[in-house]
């Protein structure tokens, strides 16, 4: 069990804010940390890792990591940290990067096997692809057999197929080592696949906390198929109206009645929704 009760003043780009987090995390849980940039997610990870100080308490399995008298050093916290930008030792081989953390060859080879890096163990890390480098970073983080694995958008720089592979490997290692994992992520499919709990931060405060489906499913009343968009145009055709709405990178058309059209104007932010029963789903031929 991890108990966190911290507060810290942060200097944001636009204005200062207070990071104010009270949180209990069960041992072995996989928690996704989500929220807009600048909401305090990375700072929270860095505080847990001991890279930043703050007021408050952090207890991990009844051990004090932080309180008013004590701040456990980074080296003594049993933490593995994977950053977005790999942060490997570029002058070392794959294996040397792992053994630098702990001289345990058997564990290093096992981790490289799980992440399909066995054949690259003696390669210089500079010769690896982004996905391979991030796997090395993941293996290196696991070398300490950490109690807590902290992942800061580890897969955001990778292409979708590599991302899927690494998601599976992260989940496999999380389970095998029984670590408590906290991952910063913005990707709903990643959060749904990996996490058992999502915590959403905004301006340094927790604004949502629950199971991924509960937190991520966009609903409009009992309608499960809901998107926000901008109304671009309303065209009258015969006695009906066609609304053209920009949703993300796409335009969609929705048929509305005259009464509905009356209340709308171009530029309005609108919600397009329908029931889960009404959508058609077809496999995309290119996948």
């Amino acid at each position: 069990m991890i108990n966190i009760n911290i507060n810290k003043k942060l200097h944001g780009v636009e204005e200062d804010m207070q990071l104010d987090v009270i949180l209990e995390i069960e041992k072995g849980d996989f928690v996704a940390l989500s929220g807009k940039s600048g909401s305090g997610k990375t700072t929270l990870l860095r505080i847990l890792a001991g890279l930043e100080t703050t007021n408050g308490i952090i207890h991990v399995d009844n051990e004090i990591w932080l309180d008013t008298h004590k701040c456990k050093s980074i080296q003594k916290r049993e933490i593995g940290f994977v950053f977005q930008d790999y942060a490997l030792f570029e002058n070392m081989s794959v294996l040397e990067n792992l053994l630098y953390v702990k001289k345990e060859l058997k564990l290093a080879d096992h981790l490289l096997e799980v992440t399909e890096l066995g054949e690259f163990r003696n390669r210089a890390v500079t010769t690896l692809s982004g996905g391979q480098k991030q796997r090395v970073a993941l293996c290196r983080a696991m070398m300490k057999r950490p109690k807590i694995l902290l992942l800061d958008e580890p897969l955001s720089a990778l292409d979708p197929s590599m991302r899927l592979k690494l998601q599976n490997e992260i989940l496999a290692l999380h389970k095998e080592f029984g670590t408590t994992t906290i991952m910063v992520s913005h990707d709903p499919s990643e959060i749904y696949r990996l996490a058992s709990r999502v915590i959403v931060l905004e301006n340094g405060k927790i604004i949502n906390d629950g199971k991924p489906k509960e937190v991520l499913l966009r609903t409009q009343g009992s309608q499960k198929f809901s998107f926000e968009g901008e109304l671009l145009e309303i065209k009258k055709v015969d006695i009906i109206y066609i609304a053209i709405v920009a949703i993300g990178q796409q335009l969609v058309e929705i048929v509305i009645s005259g009464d509905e059209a009356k209340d709308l104007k171009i530029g309005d932010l609108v919600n397009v929704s329908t029931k889960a029963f009404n959508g058609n789903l077809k496999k995309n031929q290119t996948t």
Partner: protein
Amino acid sequence: MNTIVAEVKEIKSVDNLNIVKFYFADTTLSMMSLELSERVKVGAKVKLITKPTHVAIAKKFTGEVSYSNQLDAKIIHVENGELLSSIKIQIWETTLESIITKDSSERMNLHVGDEVTVFIKANELSIVEVLDD
């Protein structure tokens, strides 16, 4: 969008699938739904919606049809376009709109004052809001 205010009468569930029944006018409405908000419970007043294009109309209807929602109504307004017709119908104090093809409207000879039956499928009703009393 057609809006109907109704009261939850009954909720039947299998896993996260629900059939919700409502008291409305002198009849019962049925809605098919996945997860429901916790505020949707028996006795709650809710605002239901359905699109005009999802509302079917029958005249002098006899026999059986699978539509769960069948309401007796009266036509209060007919607007014909070139291809489509908008038919406004009244059920007690509630007005609904049905958009159908003009061919159907003419075939059925629909006029203001006609007594008709309105059909809405259970999966085409949605709860859009739970109303506080």
